[in-house]
């Protein structure tokens, strides 16, 4: 296992010269590769084909994680390369949080809450007006009743008044008629008396006249 790891770790420098060199002369490069690690290359030969496969797999994996370099220097695969980016991203995130809170979360959230409460209040007030309407209806009914009562009272009053007036006039008329009747009767009586009186005064002459007429020779 240690060999394998060593081989894989050696694979990187093995690969890099090939990549940096021109593809026309790869043959020349191969002896160079085996030079610094002769022991391992000897071991390579003795390794069975199955281990070779696993080796190539390992090399492949090491390749995917250590990409080909472009410059002369061998660049390590910096997948887990922590540096100043980390605190900068932290600061950026915190700034973003405060900025979003200022322009988005707080104002819009407040606005939405206010709208919710306003809508709820309006709904409640609508319920209240239904009660108010009922109250108003009752009031209207009361007013109508009062008006009707007033009208009927006025009507009654007027009826009574007219009746009284009529009766008064009637009584007056009757009184007048009676008075006139009385007067006429009195006049009649007076005339009768006058006539009787006149008759009384004439009675002696008249009786003389009658006697004279009845008794002509005396």
């Amino acid at each position: 296992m240690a060999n394998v790891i060593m081989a894989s770790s050696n694979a990187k420098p093995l690969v890099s010269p090939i990549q940096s060199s021109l593809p026309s002369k790869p043959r020349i490069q191969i002896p160079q590769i085996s030079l610094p690690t002769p022991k391992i290359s000897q071991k390579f030969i003795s390794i069975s084909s199955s281990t070779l496969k696993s080796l190539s797999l390992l090399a492949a994996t090491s390749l995917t994680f250590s990409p080909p370099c472009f410059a002369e220097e061998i660049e390590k695969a910096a997948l887990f390369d922590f540096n100043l980016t980390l605190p900068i991203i932290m600061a950026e995130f915190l700034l973003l949080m405060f900025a979003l809170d200022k322009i988005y979360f707080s104002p819009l959230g407040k606005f939405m809450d206010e709208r919710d409460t306003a809508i709820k209040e309006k709904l409640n007030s609508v319920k209240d007006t239904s009660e108010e309407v009922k109250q108003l209806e009752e009031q209207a009914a009361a007013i109508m009743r009062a008006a009707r009562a007033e009208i009927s009272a006025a009507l009654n009053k007027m009826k009574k008044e007219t009746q009284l007036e009529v009766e008064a006039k009637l009584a007056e008329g009757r009184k007048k008629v009676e008075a006139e009747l009385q007067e006429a009767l009195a006049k009649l009586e007076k005339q009768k008396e006058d006539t009787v009186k006149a008759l009384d005064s004439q009675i002696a002459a008249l009786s003389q006249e009658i006697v004279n007429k009845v008794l002509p020779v005396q």
Partner: protein
Amino acid sequence: MNVLLCSINTLKGLYDISGVEVGQHFYWQLGGFQVHAQVLITSWVVIAILLGSAFIAVRNPQTIPTAGQNFFEYVLEFLRDVSKTQIGEEYGPWVPFIGTMFLFLFVSNWSGALLPWKRIQLPHGELAAPTNDINTTVALALLTSVAYFYAGLSKKGLGYFSKYIQPTPILLPINILEDFTKPLSLSFRLFGNILADELVVVVLVSLVPLVVPIPVMFLGLFTSGIQALIFATLAAAYIGESMEGHH
């Protein structure tokens, strides 16, 4: 020996054809430190997309929402729902964290598949999703760790540490180990998924440039979304877990 060389050469040929560049970075020097410029550039683009679209859509909220505002309201409801499900009733203060986590990861992941980064040539390395780099995922995972420690400590004070001997003190090592496995699993899951996804697409495109990669691309989009959701949901779950009471 020849067999080995042959296989290496064929692999190298495939490698050159496919143009896969793994672990290649475009370095910037920043005060003696190195940074991965391609990650920073793409993260800036992602942040610009997020802030710009949010600003345009939410600039002037209407009572009857416009199409863009409606979309952002839907997203916000979704994020609140995720936070509420995982954290519970006290989810309010954590919505920005969980929401930003999800949105940043989602847009990052999808940008790797949808934006034509490859059109922009870099001197070295190539532009890809920011989540393609271990620095990003570890940064976010560490922030998650900090967040759930903060949540637990602010909620329960030093009593938070009593959870390490729950339910029995025998589990103390495992409980301590969990604090390391959480960010590790978070970061490596995301990193591995996104990297593998992009690699599969690149390799398939290099082998069969027509039709065949399309289902894989769609699968990649799906995986990217799911990974963003998983990361955000797990972050919320960790926060909720450290906030809930141990009785």
